[in-house]
């Protein structure tokens, strides 16, 4: 609009108010739990402290590396779940899809002798196609996503049995596939990765800062930026230190972190991601703003199917086999519980992909720690269920507070 006016924007009461308002806004976000990840990080530290106290092998490099490997599959599936949750929908089929995709890969590779990369690509395509189909059925015919994907859960489990055939189990021996979850890089590679990651994060912060400055906007407080940078750098360095004192940086962790960072970028910084949030917040408003609501829904469910397939492939690679239980058991529930525990709302429109990683860490730590303490599955299920319930309650309470305090 008019560019002649307001060349000196930093003057007058409006600007002052804006800054104070921004600070109040940040405080409100922390209090009302939009920065729920902080809460979860504290919870995670508490969980780690308790298990370490009970069994001093818990925080050993070996066990932490194992923990990282254990959460890879569920974390990858959760990445797709986050997108679905942001729409305010649910996908109950991701567990079954992950098993089916792994079976497709194994059968093509082992029985039909396909090139491992082709087999992996085919498996990912299967996941994507299933997600597309379910998203289409949901958005085109208005069948609740809960029902469509519940039907899918059964159907794809059946398909898994069908694909595996009479043997019921297939061992994977192709080194290209087993290498996905069983490759560890040398110390030097680990450090190179750390330096690159930290430098990239610093560059992103600096570019963002400069852009806002150039646009004449109130840039973020440099101190808080430096704090964030130091925190991230410390986490990266600590992780590499831990991995290097065991077997080295696992490829599986790189894959997981890579997907989390990439998909977080997509959801937070691209047009598509913004539209996902808009549809999850108010589908009618999104439609009137010219967004193809159904298009967004179909793409999101395709992403969920794709990520489920990738998670299934990683799980198969770690297990060195695919069997009738692949993608079964509590995998589905854990994949949904993780992001919710870490602060992605079940009601749509709030959350981040980062919660997929954080949530998987929380759930993985509880499960891993209880294994170390040799607790029975009975106790494990009840504890995990309790943690999930607690997380959902916190989410619901935060939502109620927003609704009562929302309109000033």
């Amino acid at each position: 609009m008019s560019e002649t006016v307001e060349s000196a924007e930093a003057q007058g009461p409006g600007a002052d108010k804006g800054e104070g308002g921004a600070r109040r806004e940040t405080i409100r976000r922390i209090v009302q739990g939009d920065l729920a990840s902080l809460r979860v990080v504290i919870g995670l530290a508490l969980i780690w402290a308790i298990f370490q106290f009970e069994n001093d092998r818990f925080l050993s490099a070996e066990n932490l590396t194992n923990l990282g490997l254990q959460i890879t599959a569920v974390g990858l599936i959760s990445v797709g779940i986050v997108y679905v949750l942001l729409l305010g929908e649910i996908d109950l089929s991701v567990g079954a899809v992950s098993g089916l995709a792994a079976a497709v890969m194994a059968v093509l590779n082992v029985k039909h002798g396909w090139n491992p990369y082709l087999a992996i690509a085919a498996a990912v395509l299967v996941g994507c196609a299933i997600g597309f189909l379910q998203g289409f059925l949901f958005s085109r015919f208005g069948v609740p996503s809960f029902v469509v994907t519940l039907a899918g859960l059964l159907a794809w489990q059946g398909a898994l049995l069908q694909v595996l055939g009479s043997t019921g189990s297939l061992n994977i021996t192709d080194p290209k596939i087993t290498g996905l979850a069983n490759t560890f890089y040398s110390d030097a590679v680990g450090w190179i990765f750390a330096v690159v990651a930290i430098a990239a994060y610093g560059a992103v912060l600096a570019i963002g800062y400069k852009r806002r400055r150039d646009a004449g906007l109130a840039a973020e407080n440099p101190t808080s930026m430096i704090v964030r940078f130091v925190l991230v750098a410390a986490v990266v360095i600590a992780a590499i230190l831990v991995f290097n004192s065991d077997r080295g940086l696992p490829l599986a962790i790189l894959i997981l972190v890579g997907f989390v960072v990439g998909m977080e970028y997509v959801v937070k910084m691209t047009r598509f991601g913004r539209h996902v949030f808009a549809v999850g917040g108010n589908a009618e408003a999104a439609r009137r703003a010219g967004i193809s609501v159904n298009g967004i829904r179909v793409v999101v469910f395709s992403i969920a199917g794709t990520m489920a397939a990738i998670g299934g492939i990683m799980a198969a690679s770690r297990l060195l086999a695919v069997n009738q239980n692949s993608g079964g058991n509590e995998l589905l529930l854990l994949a949904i519980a993780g992001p919710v525990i870490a602060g992605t709302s079940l009601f749509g429109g709030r959350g981040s992909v980062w919660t997929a990683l954080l949530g998987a860490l929380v759930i993985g730590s509880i499960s891993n720690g209880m294994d170390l303490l040799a607790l029975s599955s009975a106790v494990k299920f009840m504890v995990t269920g309790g943690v999930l319930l607690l997380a959902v309650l916190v989410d619901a309470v935060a939502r109620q507070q927003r609704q009562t305090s929302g309109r000033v």
Partner: protein
Amino acid sequence: MASGAPLLELEKVSKRFGPVQALDRVDFAVHAGEVVGLVGDNGAGKSTMVKTIAGIHSADEGTIRFDGEEVKIKGPQDATELGIATVYQDLALCDNLDVVDNLFLGHEEVSPGLGRVSRQLDEAKMEHQTGELLSNLAVTIPSLRSEVGTLSGGQRQQVAVARSLLGEPKVVLLDEPTAALGVAQTQQVLQLIRRLRERNLGVVVISHNLADVFEVADRIFVLRLGRAGGEFDAQQTTEEHVVGAITGLGEDNGNSKQRDEGGEPAGEERGEEG
């Protein structure tokens, strides 16, 4: 101010829904730099008229002229392209997104260079533009990055109006902009409407609240049972006259078209779209 050729002109526009004559040969005009209050009882055809202008319904008969040229408005897209922006009563904001996000929803600015590939958002540019627009309109909001859900009703209304201005419209239709607002918030919104007039936009304000209409409108247009029920200069008339025209009981205002049609008031489809 209401001089010269009208920006938007309706001539003998009619609209039927089955047996119901929602609009019956209505003539209506808005000029640049003019605020027209559109009033009428429930079911008088206000919403139908707005939706016809906004392209949600198409007129059965009659002609619509925009900037002096006859136009066909077949869909909301057509209206937007002509330069007609509509702010519906429900505002259509995403509560979980902040002010900047909502303003640019569906028309996000994309970063130049590499960012174009992934259609990366140019947040700095959008925030800058939002800041300029809102300060031009003297809209005060705690922070441009406040979630819209945390704003007051008046602030939300102002955000919705500001959003409609991003497409550089010439005519803005406001559906009940002051409904359910407190006194102070109503004043903020009315002030904003005056600023739209200063920007030389044609503004149509649909409202039940005659006090608000009198405060802000230059001209008051009354719809009654789908027909033009009278037109008043806001400076030179009284509420009683306008109420008379709305209810059809006023005898003396020169255009007493109050033939009481048998049958119920033309039923509008309220709530379906706006």
